[in-house]
C-alpha cells in the first residue's frame, strides 16, 4: 500500500500575536482540507503534535480540542516527543493507515511559544533534556557541547557554523511563510552575542508560533506526492550516556530504515529539510544522513555544496533557523514543504529529518 499526501497547509510562522493555539490548529486543518479538496468527514483519525501546550498555553487535552473542529468528531490522539513530536505524529498516522485501522488520517502540529518570556521558554524547552542527569542544562548548552566535540575532532570552524545560518537565511528569502526575511553575512553570525560557547545568537533557531497539517491516505490518488519511506530510532536521552558525541546515532538508524523502505540511496536525495535547531545540528545531520562523510559537513556547507543548486539542497525552506521552529509543527511542516516542492515539479525526491531533544529521538521521511 502506498501512502499519499492528499492535502497540506502550513501557516505563516513567526510572532503571531493575534493568534492563539486553537486559531493556529484551526487554520492549518482548514487549509489542509481545502488543499486536499475532500469532504472533512472522510478523515477517519486525527493525530495531534505539540510539545508543551500545557506550559506555554495552559491547554492540554489537545486531542479533544482538535477533534471538536470537525462536525463528526473523529477519534484523535496527541503525540509528544519533544521537537520530534511532528515526525512521530506522522509515523503514528502512517502506521495506522498501513495497519488498516484507518484509511485517511489528518496529522496536525502546532506550537504557540511567544506568549511567555524568553527565559521561561528556555526553561520549558529544557524539559526535553534528562531532568535528573542534565539538571539545569539548556538546549543551547547541550548543543554547544556537541559543537565543541565536533570542533575538536574535525576542526569544524566558527566560519563553517556561520555558513549554515547564512545559507538558511538566504534560502528563507524565497519562502513567504518564513519567520525571517533577512540576509546575514558570515561576520554578522560570528559576531552575534554569545549564548553558549561556541554557539551564538544567530546559530540558534528562534522561538516561533505556527502550525502545519497534512492529510495522509491509503486511497489511490494520482499526481500527489507519496510517503516513500519512514524510519524512527532512539538513543540515550542524556549526552553522558551516549557512546559518541560526534554523531546522532538515532539519525543514522532512522535514515537507514527510511532509505531501505523507500529503496533509495542518500546520493539520490535532491532536497532535504533537516533539523537545524542549531547550526551544529545541521552539520551533524548532513553527515549522519549520509550526504557527506563524517567530519566534512562544515566544509561542504562553507563550500556552498548545500546551497540551492549545490550537490544536495539543504533546508531550502530556511529550515528551523529561518523558516522558524514552532516545535509541534516542525516535523510536519518539513514534509509539507517537500510535498509542495514535488507538486510544483521542482524536485522529485526529498527527505525530512526531525530530531527530538539533543538527538535522543529521530524521525526521517522520504517523500517523492
Amino acid at each position: 500500500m502506498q501512502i499519499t499526501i492528499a492535502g497540506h497547509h502550513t501557516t505563516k510562522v513567526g510572532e503571531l500575536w493575534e493568534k492563539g493555539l486553537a486559531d493556529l490548529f484551526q487554520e492549518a486543518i482548514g487549509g489542509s482540507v481545502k488543499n486536499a479538496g475532500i469532504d472533512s468527514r472522510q478523515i477517519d483519525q486525527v493525530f495531534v503534535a505539540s510539545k508543551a501546550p500545557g506550559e506555554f498555553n495552559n491547554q492540554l487535552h489537545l486531542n479533544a480540542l482538535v477533534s471538536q473542529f470537525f462536525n463528526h468528531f473523529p477519534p484523535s490522539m496527541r503525540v509528544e516527543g519533544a521537537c520530534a513530536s511532528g515526525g512521530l505524529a506522522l509515523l503514528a498516522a502512517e502506521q495506522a493507515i498501513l495497519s488498516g485501522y484507518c484509511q485517511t488520517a489528518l496529522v496536525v502540529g502546532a506550537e504557540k511559544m511567544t506568549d511567555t518570556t524568553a527565559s521561561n521558554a528556555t526553561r520549558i524547552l529544557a524539559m526535553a533534556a534528562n531532568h535528573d542527569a542534565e539538571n539545569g542544562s539548556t538546549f543551547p548548552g547541550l548543543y554547544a557541547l556537541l559543537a565543541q566535540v565536533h570542533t575538536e575532532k574535525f576542526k569544524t570552524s566558527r566560519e563553517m557554523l556561520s555558513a549554515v545560518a547564512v545559507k538558511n537565511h538566504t534560502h528563507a528569502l524565497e519562502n513567504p511563510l518564513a519567520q525571517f526575511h533577512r540576509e546575514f553575512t558570515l561576520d554578522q553570525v560570528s559576531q552575534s552575542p554569545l549564548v553558549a560557547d561556541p554557539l551564538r545568537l544567530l546559530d540558534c533557531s528562534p522561538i516561533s508560533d505556527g502550525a502545519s497539517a497534512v492529510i495522509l491516505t491509503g486511497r489511490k490518488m494520482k499526481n500527489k506526492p507519496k510517503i516513500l519511506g519512514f524510519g524512527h530510532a532512539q538513543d540515550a536521552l542524556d549526552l553522558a550516556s551516549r557512546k559518541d558525541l560526534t554523531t546522532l546515532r538515532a539519525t543514522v538508524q532512522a535514515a537507514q530504515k527510511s532509505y531501505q523502505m523507500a529503496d533509495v540511496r542518500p546520493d539520490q536525495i535532491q532536497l532535504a529539510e533537516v533539523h537545524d535547531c542549531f547550526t551544529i545540528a545541521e552539520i551533524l545531520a548532513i553527515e549522519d544522513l549520509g550526504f557527506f562523510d563524517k567530519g566534512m559537513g562544515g566544509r561542504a556547507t562553507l563550500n556552498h555544496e548545500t546551497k540551492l543548486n549545490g550537490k544536495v539542497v539543504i533546508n531550502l525552506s530556511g529550515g528551523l533557523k529561518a523558516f522558524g521552529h514552532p516545535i509541534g509543527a516542525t516535523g510536519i511542516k518539513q514534509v509539507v514543504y517537500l510535498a509542495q516542492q514535488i507538486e510544483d515539479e521542482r524536485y522529485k525526491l526529498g527527505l525530512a529529518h526531525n530530531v527530538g531533544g539533543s538527538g535522543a529521538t529521530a524521525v526521517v521521511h522520504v517523500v517523492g
Partner: protein
Amino acid sequence: MPVINKPVGIVAYGTELPSWSLSIKELEMAHNKEIGTVSNSLLVEQKTVPDFDEDTITLSTSAAWQALARAGITKNFGSKKISALFVGSESHPYAVKPSGSVVAGALGLPEELAMADLQFACKAGTQGMQICASYILSDFAKYALAIGADVAQAKPGDALEYTAAAGAAAFIFGSTNLLVKLLATSSVASDTPDFWRKSGEDFPHHGGRFTGKPAYFYHVIKSSKMLLKEMKLKAEDFDYCVFHTPNGKFPLQAAKQLGFSSKQLKPGLIVKKVGNTYAGSVPLALAAILDQAPAGKKIFVTAYGSGAGADSFVFETTDNLPKQRKKWQDFTLDKIKNLQPISYQQYARLTKDRYH
C-alpha cells in the same frame, strides 16, 4: 480635540537630570555580557543614575523650578498664577498621597489649585500636557503646569536595567506670549498588557518582544497616522519629530515607518546619553528640541505608554522662543554634558540604598 483653533501652548519649560551617569559598558561587564552587545543593540551609550535621595518629587520640583524661573525672567511671572498641576510618573513615591501636593508646596503654588498625579506608564507626562492644554482652552485655568518625571525602576539583571534612568521635564501651558503653539493633539488607548507593575511590587514586569510590534509600534503608528491625517500633513511638513524612547532603536524604526528622516529625529534623540526616563522621556526630548529650534518650526511628537496608549501632538515654535532663549542658561544638553560618570560599584550602592 484633534485640531485646535484657539491659542494655547507652552509659555515656559524646564528640565532636570540627576548628576550621575553610568555607561552601559559598566553594566555589560557586571552582567558578564560581551562589551557593546547590549548598547549596540539598544543604541544607548549611558544612562542617568539618581542619587539615593532623588525621586519623582525632587526631580519634578527642580524641572518646574527652572520653568518658573525662566517664565519669571521673561514676564515677571509668579508661581501664584498657576491654577492647575498634573504630575505624570510611574514612580510616584507614595501609592496613596499625591506627589503633586509636595511639588506644589515646594514651588509655592496657590492652594486654589486643580491638581492630581497621573499614571499611564511612559505617557503619563504627555497626558498631563494634554490635560493642561484642555484646562487653558476651557478657561478652567489661565496657566497650568504639566510635569513628566520618573526614577525608572528595573530589576537588577533584567533587560530594563540597561536603560532605566531618571529625569523630568516641566511645561507651563497658557494662551498668551507663547514660546510654542499647540496646533493639534490626539490619543489612542487599548488593553494591551506589555509592561506592568502590581501594587506592592518594587519592579515592573514586561512581555519581552511583545512590547514591540503589538504594543509600542501599533499604538505609536496608529496615533501618529491619525493626527497626520486629521491635520492633512505629511512627515516632510515637519522640521523635528519625537517618538517615545524606551531605547534608541524603537524611535528610529517608528520614524522610518512614518516617513520621518533621521535628520528630523536626531535633535531630540537624547536617549543615547540619558537612557529611558519613562514618563520623563518624551517631555525631555521635546525640551531638548526647544533648546535649539528657531522660530516657525513644526514639531511632531508621539509619546507611548505601556498598557497601552499613545499621545500625539503638533507644535509650532514662535518668534518668542529664540528671543527668550537668549536670556536662559542650563539647557538640557548642558545638563547631559555635566553628567558625572560613576562605576558599577557606586551605582549598585546607590540602587541598594534606594530599595533598602
